[in-house]
């Protein structure tokens, strides 16, 4: 009986608990359904917001919004291009009503950004200042500029400058500055009487500023003493070292450089062998720092400015910083003369307009404006792109490098690198590693023969 009562009580209790449980479930279901409906709406709203944001961002991606009065320029960060662009921006705005927006990136970033824009056919910049090396690869995305300036202004280009920027008969850039490697040397060491006597005694001729390969080699050997090296050899990975070697190849008679107009590869010929063997001899003499495989322009300039080098073959504009570091002690002379005469590979930079820019007319106005301001690059960098500016600074002691650059640019063997789109690949994948192997001791002719095959493969691909 008691068991039955207990069971009934339990059953009743269970029933009420069950009812409460059901009530809880109904409550939860009701509010969960509401929650789910709320979440559904929220998700739909979130998706809509995302879609609107993405589409809106896509629509505003480039500088070609006609309602904004800005012109976007791409320059190398920290370069004279950036400095002069900033200094002239206010004046251009006053003249044209357009604000100059300057985008500055590291050297390789300029090429990378422009390449990406041109390949995507979508310009986020209207104009840029580029290295001459990049013309073949970027040409398809650049706008011709021969109508931007007058014939008189075109005639004011320094030697080689119109040729460097002309691709398929079209002039694609206006020069900002040109440059070449020249010889910078320690005037005080060369003029020292003790050095003069010792040199004459050892080498049998007077110590003078080197003009020939032999004079340079002897001077480098002579000045390697007392914690100083005579000079340096560029062996760092990249184009700077390759162009340094090509200067010597040109001086030894190479013309054209590496590839001719019929795409015949010339790299295994005598001038290239001779120039490599000459560099090997400087290393063998121990006249250069031992870490030549990590040295190029910047490192050489640092060594020279810290008094560790007696001479440097450097880009002309380095004269100003060297003279600042060693006041009154730095001299400048033209590039060396090999068996074929003075020769060098010029390194100009150009102002260009992007074909896909929607403000091409304003960009053209900007280019013409900046061409008139070309002298500002002389103040900032010590070099310019116009003959008239160079002539103004000739015989100026503070710009002693100008005469040396002019003489080098006028040299019989001074010439540009091949204007082919494969040049960057040939330079980085073939010539740079090959140069490094030869400098490290490999046989020059053997390496050049192998390089010829590699270049031919690249050209045929």
């Amino acid at each position, binding site marked *: 009986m008691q068991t039955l009562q207990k069971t009934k009580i339990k059953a009743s209790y269970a029933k009420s608990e069950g009812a409460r449980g059901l009530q809880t*479930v109904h409550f*939860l*279901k009701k509010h*969960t359904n509401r929650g*789910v409906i709320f*979440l*559904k709406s929220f*998700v*739909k709203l*979130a*998706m809509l917001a*995302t879609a609107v944001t993405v589409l809106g961002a896509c629509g505003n991606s480039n500088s070609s919004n006609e309602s904004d009065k800005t012109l976007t320029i791409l320059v190398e960060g920290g370069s004279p291009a950036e400095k002069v662009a900033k200094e002239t921006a206010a004046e251009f705005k006053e003249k044209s009503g357009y604000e100059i927006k300057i985008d500055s990136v590291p050297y390789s970033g300029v*090429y*990378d950004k422009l*390449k*990406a824009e041109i*390949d995507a*056919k979508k310009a986020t910049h209207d104009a840029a200042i580029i290295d001459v090396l990049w013309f073949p*690869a970027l040409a*398809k995305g650049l706008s011709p500029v021969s109508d931007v300036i007058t014939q008189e202004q075109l005639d004011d280009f320094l030697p080689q400058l119109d040729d460097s920027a002309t691709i398929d008969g079209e002039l694609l850039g206006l020069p900002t500055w040109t440059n070449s490697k020249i010889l910078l040397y320690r005037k005080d060491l060369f003029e020292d009487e003790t050095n003069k006597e010792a040199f004459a005694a050892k080498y049998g001729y007077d110590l003078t500023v080197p003009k020939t390969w032999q004079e340079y080699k002897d001077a480098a050997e002579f000045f390697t003493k007392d914690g100083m090296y005579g000079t340096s050899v560029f*062996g*760092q*990975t*990249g184009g700077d070292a390759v162009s340094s070697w090509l200067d010597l190849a040109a001086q030894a008679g190479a013309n054209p450089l590496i590839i001719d107009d019929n795409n015949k590869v010339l790299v295994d010929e005598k001038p290239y062998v001779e120039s490599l063997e000459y560099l090997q001899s400087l290393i063998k003499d121990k006249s250069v*720092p*031992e*870490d*030549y*495989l*990590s*040295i190029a322009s910047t*490192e050489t300039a*640092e*060594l020279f400015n*810290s008094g*560790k080098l007696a001479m440097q073959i450097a880009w002309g504009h380095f004269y100003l910083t060297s003279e600042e570091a060693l006041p009154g002690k730095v001299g400048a002379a033209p590039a060396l003369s090999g068996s074929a005469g003075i020769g060098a590979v010029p390194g100009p930079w150009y102002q260009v307009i992007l074909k896909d820019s929607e403000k091409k007319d304003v960009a053209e106005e900007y280019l013409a404006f900046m061409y008139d301001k070309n002298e500002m690059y002389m103040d900032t960098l010590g070099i310019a792109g116009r003959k008239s500016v160079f002539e103004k600074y000739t015989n100026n002691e503070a710009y002693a490098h100008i005469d040396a650059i002019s003489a080098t640019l006028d040299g019989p063997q001074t010439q540009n690198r091949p204007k082919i789109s*494969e040049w*960057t*690949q040939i330079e*980085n*994948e073939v010539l*740079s*590693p090959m140069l*490094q*192997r030869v400098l*490290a001791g490999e046989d020059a002719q053997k390496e050049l023969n192998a390089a010829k095959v590699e270049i031919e493969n690249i050209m045929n691909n």
Partner: protein
Amino acid sequence: MNTINRKTMLYFFLPAAIFMLVFLLYPLITLIIDSFSMTLGDGSREFVGLSNYIKAFSSATFLKAFKNTIIYVFLAVGLETVLGLFLSIVLTHKYKGFTALRTLMLSPLMIAPIVAGLIWKFMLSNQFGIINALLVKFGLIESTSSILWLANPNITLISVVIADVWLTTPFMMLMFLAGIQGISDGLYEAAVMEGASKIQMIFRIIIPNIKPVLFSALIVRIIDAARSFDIIWAMTQGGPNNSSELLSVHIYKMLQRYSDIGLSSAMAMIFISVLISITLIFRKKINN
């Protein structure tokens, strides 16, 4: 009773699905298509089959970069694991000044890889760098030109490994520290009572108990090390003579410098396949 039905679940998944489609699947599919194509001058693609893959495997520079990547990963991750483990064990013990020491050890993590690369480039310069200057001062080398860290093709890869180890050991240290702090004190007490030495405690207690953390850290670091670009580019740009060029640098040059989209895509696909295989192997080990 289902409170959330299948349709609702799909709605929840939709934003993530759109994101994955746009930023993961679409680029991956484009990469695969590009790897079997050649891009012509006008931007159009021409199907070339396996030609790009054959070219990649026949390229001496690609194979050299592949080999360099394996060596780099093996050395860098190996050293980081050993050092990270050692430092984490040291830092589990509380002593005076350990907080300051831990903060100091974590400081490389705050530095961007490209900045670290530039710092090490200057430190390893034999003309101006502090490393060789100190080694000469302590009589370990004869002159600052005795070791050409960035100019000797035989040791440049080791130089970039050193920079990477300095930069990333704190990450491994942090991971292991978290794992070690999860080990019960009772295990140590029992080990002490049984007369275990410090070395035995490391190999019999610490390492077995942090195995999941160890494998997770290893897989993250292997993938990260294989993808290294900034440090290499800042220090050597892959030279001299491609001696420090990793796959990431090589693929970058192929695509960005030489615009060989097909070949660089094929190389990237090979690279991704290798990394996915490694990830799957490690995942199996973690699950076991």
